[in-house]
């Protein structure tokens, strides 16, 4: 009698290359994605009570405006000014591209209101009326 050994069919999916593919994907995303992070200007933010401060809705739909102690303005890391209409034009441009734009206003606590009112009026002209005055949380 002849024994015949039935060869079992081994159904193995080769997983060795899977990690290579995953790594390729990771590298792809690492190179493509840009972490949007603005440098801004050095500011000391004022503080406010915890109950009144809110987080911004989404970083994607937010324009960042800085005004430092000396009154220098930076909108999304671009130095702008009120006099030459560059603040108005750049805010208007981003508002046109993204109608649901919020403005995140990081004003230094030592700035005089004259400069702030000027900047706010430029924002109002550019129809960017939804703003968020950046503050820190008051320590009790």
């Amino acid at each position, binding site marked *: 009698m002849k024994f015949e050994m039935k060869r079992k069919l081994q159904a193995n999916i080769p997983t060795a290359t899977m990690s290579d593919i995953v790594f390729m994907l990771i590298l792809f995303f690492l190179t493509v994605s840009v972490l949007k992070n603005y440098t801004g200007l050095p500011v000391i933010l*004022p503080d*406010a009570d915890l109950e*009144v401060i809110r987080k911004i809705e989404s970083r994607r739909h937010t324009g960042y405006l800085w005004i430092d102690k000396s009154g220098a303005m930076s909108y999304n890391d671009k130095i702008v000014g009120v006099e030459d209409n560059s603040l108005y034009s750049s805010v208007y441009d981003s508002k046109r591209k993204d109608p649901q734009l919020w403005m995140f206003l990081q004003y230094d606590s030592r700035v005089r209101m004259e400069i702030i009112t000027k900047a706010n009026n430029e924002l109002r002209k550019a129809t960017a009326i939804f703003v968020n005055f950046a*503050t820190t949380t008051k320590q009790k």
Partner: protein
Amino acid sequence: MIRKKRIPVGEIPLCSLADISFLILTFFLVSTVIYADKGIPLALPMYGDQMNVPKKNICNVFINDVGLIMVSETVMPIALLKENIRQRIIENPDLIISIKSVKDTPYKTFIDVLSEIKLSGAGKISIAEMEK
């Protein structure tokens, strides 16, 4: 004759995969910044959009350059501002709080006042610069 055929089993060493994935995880943990963009939200009025509001529906809050606060002709410390505004809103729910500051008012004082007015539950807040 029974011949045992040895089937080659291709084993992949998977123990290092965990190390690699931990490396990637560490990279992302280090490079990710948790943003805490927080502040006081406010809707500014549209430019040139002048509304005629009856005088009784406006409550002026003046702030001068040394931080004195005046609410409708009465000077008061900032600690009393919240209760005062709250009372006024209970009396007249349509009240618009208009914060008026002079040119030399520090932004810090303005935020303090804005924060107190927000705490009082006021919904309609306008900010303006005092005319000369």
